[in-house]
């Protein structure tokens, strides 16, 4: 399989008034093309920092990240972060606008994505007029519009209530599958990771180290179906035991 990312001996230290904090300690792993990789760890373990470093939003202290040439990165956050003063279409076009890639072709592609994923009648509406799930879909399309090779998702559903969370993760998984994207997602929700991922990396508590890596293949097409798979409870239990608890 084609490697998109190779992370080698990555470490990260923060400096604060009260001293040095080691957030990530010597992590190495690869990301392969078209895989859905989940990184789980308890809150505050440094997984967001790891994703920020991979997405060029933060510097690393030591180690190396080898990227495939011209790798185009897409990043999606916990909250939809839609601009309330832009309508849905303009919000979805924001990334293209920033990158000066707002060509006719790209605009058409974005519109097509919006229409394909049920936002056809909302192009002229403003974010405040949409439900949480719809807003999250717009946020994903805003990222997809820049045609990224790899998507980084930072707990993309944790701002939603439980019911919308299940259906939105179904939605998002569907979209990502249709668009054939590589994904690295971080979460602290074991069930969410199991229902979405092809591979799961478990991180220890801070400073984050890799505790274990699991290849996941559960029966079922959608995340909701996978949650009903036979092996689900068994894997859940193993991951639960691997996770460091903060309590």
């Amino acid at each position, binding site marked *: 399989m084609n490697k998109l990312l190779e992370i080698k001996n990555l470490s990260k230290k923060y400096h604060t008034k009260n001293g040095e904090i080691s957030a990530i300690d010597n992590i190495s792993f690869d990301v392969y093309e078209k895989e859905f990789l989940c990184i789980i760890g308890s809150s505050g373990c440094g997984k967001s920092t790891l994703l920020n470093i991979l997405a060029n939003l933060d510097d690393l202290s030591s180690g190396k990240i080898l990227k495939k040439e011209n790798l185009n990165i*897409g*990043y999606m956050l916990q909250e939809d*972060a839609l601009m309330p*003063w832009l309508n849905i279409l303009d919000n979805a076009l*924001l990334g293209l606008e920033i990158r000066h890639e707002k060509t006719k072709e790209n605009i058409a592609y974005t519109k097509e994505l919006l229409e394909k994923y049920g936002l056809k009648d909302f192009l002229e509406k403003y974010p405040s007029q949409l439900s949480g799930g719809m807003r999250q879909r717009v946020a994903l399309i805003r990222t997809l519009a820049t045609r990224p090779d790899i998507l980084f998702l930072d707990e993309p559903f944790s701002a939603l209530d439980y019911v919308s969370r299940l259906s939105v993760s179904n939605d998002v998984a569907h979209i990502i599958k249709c668009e054939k994207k590589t994904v690295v997602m971080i979460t602290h929700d074991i069930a969410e990771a199991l229902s979405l991922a092809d591979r799961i990396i478990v991180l220890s508590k801070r400073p984050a180290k890799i505790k274990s890596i699991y290849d996941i293949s559960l029966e079922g097409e959608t995340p909701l179906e996978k949650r009903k798979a036979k092996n689900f409870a068994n894997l859940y239990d193993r991951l639960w035991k691997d996770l460091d608890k903060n309590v």
Partner: protein
Amino acid sequence: MSKEQQRYLKKIKIRKYFVILVQVIIVIGFLALWEFLANKNIINTFVFSKPSEIWETILGLIAQNNLFNHILTTLKEVLIAFVLGILLGFIIAIILYEIPILAEIVDPFLTMINSLPKVALGPLIIIIAGANTKSIIVMALLINLIVSIITIYNGFVNVDDKKMKLIKSFGATKAQILTHLVIPSSYKTIISSLKLNISMSLIGVIMGEFLVSKEGIGYLIIYGTQVFNLSLVMAGILILIIISYILYKIIIFIESKLIKKF
């Protein structure tokens, strides 16, 4: 529409009319009482004047073709101070935002200037800028500029960090962050700083006119005091009340037009 809904709407309407009615009664009652007490010599008309005399003074000013000149002068000065204050405030706020270390350095000085009663600088301003309109504008700017800078700057620094992270993940440049995120998301703050700025400009201009002027509402008031023509002073104050109310209403109107967008 149901009967309850109709009754509810009617109740709101009646309440609104009642408020307006009482407001009108208060104004008329106040003026009538003032006139009555003055006519009965219970209050000293030399000090307090009386509504009919104030009205005649205003008519006299209009007849001499002076009143509108004075109003126009004051309005012109307010407008210049207002526009300069907003523009400079906006530009300085952007500079402070872009250079955080500068913002940290000037922070105590801004607070000091902001808490200083600006009128204390009046004599100094006259010496530096001269006894002319320039001094009036400088006075008004001193009063409105610091507040504008602080308000707009605070709007800038309070931008949502999630949106900041998002726009950075697209690789936005500093200029793009400013035009696509920081300025639009501070839109409401900027608009509300207009409201603050217009009152501050009027205060500053009147203060400036007290110090140096040959024209304007502030001049009318200070001149009236000097020649003990209290009707003129009262007329000036009355006109000032009306002007400030109208200016405020205009800004509120502009605000509602600009903010309705989303």
